[in-house]
């Protein structure tokens, strides 16, 4: 088997599985701060019970994020050693900063937040929740800075021995690509948490168990959901797309399935790209829209794939086309569902409107799919480069790690992650089944060994 392909799948598989967890951690830690704030302001104990319930979910989810995250930092060296060697001076820096500024903070205060509620004052506990939130968002920022440099390298120079160095640390951290991607990504994380919380709320309301708490979940989830689904598209997605059109034109062309440059470029809503014939089969398209979205006028010319040599096309191009459309389609669906739910909530009807509660209950897997598809869009769109325009993928992998060794560890991770998935589902099911208002005696069973 092709070693390069296996190293790509190795990283793709482990990072895709990993990111199922941090997206919820980052979004949920924000919503937990909102619940804790409401608890202090309203002095209503149900908000604290709601926060405790989500803290249990966060604990299991956080653990999964930690254990699947550790391999990521090592895989730059194990599977992508040529890339690590030349660019470590640039991207090693944000990765190290993530450890120093985020992981120490998170690990210290998550323990205090989960098990220190009785030892801390209300504000002390609120502060620990806030620090967990800040820690997880700092972590996200440094990872985005790392990825953004690979997407859009800035503030670097090449030393005589072929190694890259940062010329401006500040420039690296304020890479415009990073700021846009960060806003877009964090909005996506909040969408995941909002849908998960709304689904739990809809479940308890429909079940008529813990319905009080279910209504709190719905209120917080739908409020966050409507805001984040809108900011996901406008301004963050819109700005990110335009910036991308400027700096990764081949990527935009492949994402949109635009084989030939033209003015009044259409947006293809659905279709099947044929790379050989260079056309979209069975297209459902709207003329002029793509030109308008990127340049604000239907007259503008959008660069198609025809302007780029075949070896510079992102590959596999059809997969990029599909994941981008899945992301954008689901993003539109989120806005629709959340606006309907928010209007209903505003009119005081949501808790009794089954035809909205059911979609809210069933939609929670979609943000996971959309976030995954979004990251696949970013990463496939960067192909065939490890660092866009500078280092091609075959120049990055560990050439002395044979395909047999890479396959061995890939299968090892697949097996291990299957076990972790089963454990995760069992534990989350138990938390949801037990519900938010657990009597004090039963609470103990869920307590992790991290004691209070």
């Amino acid at each position, binding site marked *: 088997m092709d070693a390069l392909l296996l190293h790509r799948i190795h990283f793709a598989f482990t990072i895709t599985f990993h990111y199922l967890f941090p997206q919820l951690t980052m979004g949920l830690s924000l919503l937990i701060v909102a619940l804790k704030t409401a608890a202090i302001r309203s002095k209503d104990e149900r908000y604290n019970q709601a926060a405790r319930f989500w803290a249990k979910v966060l604990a299991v989810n956080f653990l999964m994020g930690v254990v699947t995250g550790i391999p990521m930092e090592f895989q730059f060296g194990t599977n992508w*050693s040529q890339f690590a060697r030349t*660019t470590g001076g640039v*991207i090693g820096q944000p990765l190290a900063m993530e450890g120093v500024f985020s992981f120490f903070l998170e690990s210290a205060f998550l323990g205090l937040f989960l098990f220190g509620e*009785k030892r801390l004052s209300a504000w002390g506990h609120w502060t620990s929740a806030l620090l967990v939130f800040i820690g997880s968002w700092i972590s996200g920022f440094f990872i985005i800075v790392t990825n953004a440099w690979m997407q859009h390298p800035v503030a670097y120079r090449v030393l005589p021995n072929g190694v890259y160095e940062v010329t401006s*640390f500040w420039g690296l951290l304020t890479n415009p690509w990073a700021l846009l991607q960060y806003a877009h990504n964090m909005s996506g994380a909040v969408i995941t948490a909002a849908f998960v919380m709304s689904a739990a709320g809809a479940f308890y309301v429909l079940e008529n168990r813990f319905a009080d708490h279910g209504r709190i979940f719905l209120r917080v989830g739908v409020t966050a959901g409507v805001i984040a689904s809108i900011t996901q598209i406008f301004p963050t997605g819109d700005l990110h797309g335009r910036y991308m059109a400027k700096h990764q034109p081949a990527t935009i062309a492949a994402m949109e399935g635009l084989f030939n440059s033209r003015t009044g470029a259409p947006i293809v809503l659905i279709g099947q790209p044929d790379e050989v014939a260079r056309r979209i089969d069975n297209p459902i398209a709207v003329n002029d829209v793509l030109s308008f979205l990127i340049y604000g006028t239907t007259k503008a010319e959008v660069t198609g794939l025809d302007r780029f040599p075949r070896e510079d096309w992102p590959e596999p191009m059809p997969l990029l086309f599909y994941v981008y459309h899945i992301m954008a389609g689901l993003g539109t669906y989120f806005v629709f569902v959340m606006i309907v739910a928010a209007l209903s909530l505003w009119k005081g009807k949501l808790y009794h409107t089954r035809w909205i509660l059911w979609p809210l209950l069933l939609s929670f897997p979609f943000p996971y799919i959309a976030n995954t598809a979004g990251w696949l869009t970013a990463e496939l769109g960067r192909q065939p480069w490890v660092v866009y325009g500078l280092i091609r993928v075959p120049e990055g992998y560990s050439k*002395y790690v044979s395909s047999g060794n890479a396959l061995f560890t890939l299968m090892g991770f697949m097996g*291990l992650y299957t076990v972790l998935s089963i454990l995760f589902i069992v*534990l989350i099911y138990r938390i949801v089944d037990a519900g938010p208002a657990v009597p004090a005696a039963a609470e103990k069973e869920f307590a992790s060994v991290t004691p209070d």
Partner: protein
Amino acid sequence: MGFIWFWVVAVMLVAYVVLDGFDIGVGILHLFVAQTEPQRQVTLHSIGPVWDGNEVWLLASGGTLYFAFPLLYASAFSGFYLALMIVLWLLIGRAAAIELRMKINNGVWRAFFDGVFFISSALLAVFYGAALANVIRGVPLGADGYFFLPLWTDWRVGPQPGILDWYTVIGGVVALVALAEHGALYLAVKTEGELQQRARATGRVLWIALFALTIISLPASVIARPDTLDNYRKYPLTFAVPVIVFLSLLGMIHFCRKAEDRKAFGCSCVYLSIMMAGAAIGLYPRLLPATTGAQYDITIDHALSGPHTLHVGLAWWGFGMLLALTYFVIVYRMFRGKVPVESGGYEH
């Protein structure tokens, strides 16, 4: 600059070994020292609030190594590929065992995770010791700065060794015993009654093995890597290292016998730190020596990042460490003292 970053990474790795070392040690002893369910819970609770933070030192050192010495990071991580991947799996298993054991009140579930906790902790210790021994012995680096080692070949120390050979296995066993001893002394500090008695007794028995292994490991290192002693000969003051190693070993058993558990644990911290410092002195200014000839050694100058990276790095690193130390003080103060037995841990 190279000198500073060499010691920055070394100090972070020492912090990792001393801190995560005791919770790995507790994992190695957990099945044997704690025999009833309440005792098992106490041993787990003794490390519960801190193990995750301790492990962050590994990630922070890995990241620092990555940006300060990218060539070393790239070469070593791909060269020790299989061993590192197994270490990752063990870290995953261990974290899952610690955190998930208490989630379900069911004997089989708990027994399963107790087993995972033991196996992953013990193997981690062996792999860490073997890793350090590999770095001391050297690896078959090529002209391009890369190498690849299988897990084992013929178990001999030659120009084409495996990750495991007779010397690195000794390193692994030293680490296994040293971390188990470290864990026993930590448990003696954190527990009371029967559990504490058993932790102390384990500490006394393991000490004999540790003493013998330490005596074997020093000449073994010189056989596996004759030039280890060059720096020591050049700077005779460094012969204080073996002296402190033996003083700390004697201190461990002395204080353990007198039931002065904190001091015994302190000596164990010194022992681990100085053993690692001793290895670092033997290496300097090399980072990863070659078995294929000194011209292929990865040295500090050879692997160091560009100057701007390192200057900026020093600024935020100092600030970040200050923050990290503050968090550690807060957490360790919050959970100081004995883990009570009756309640099966801290009340929730």
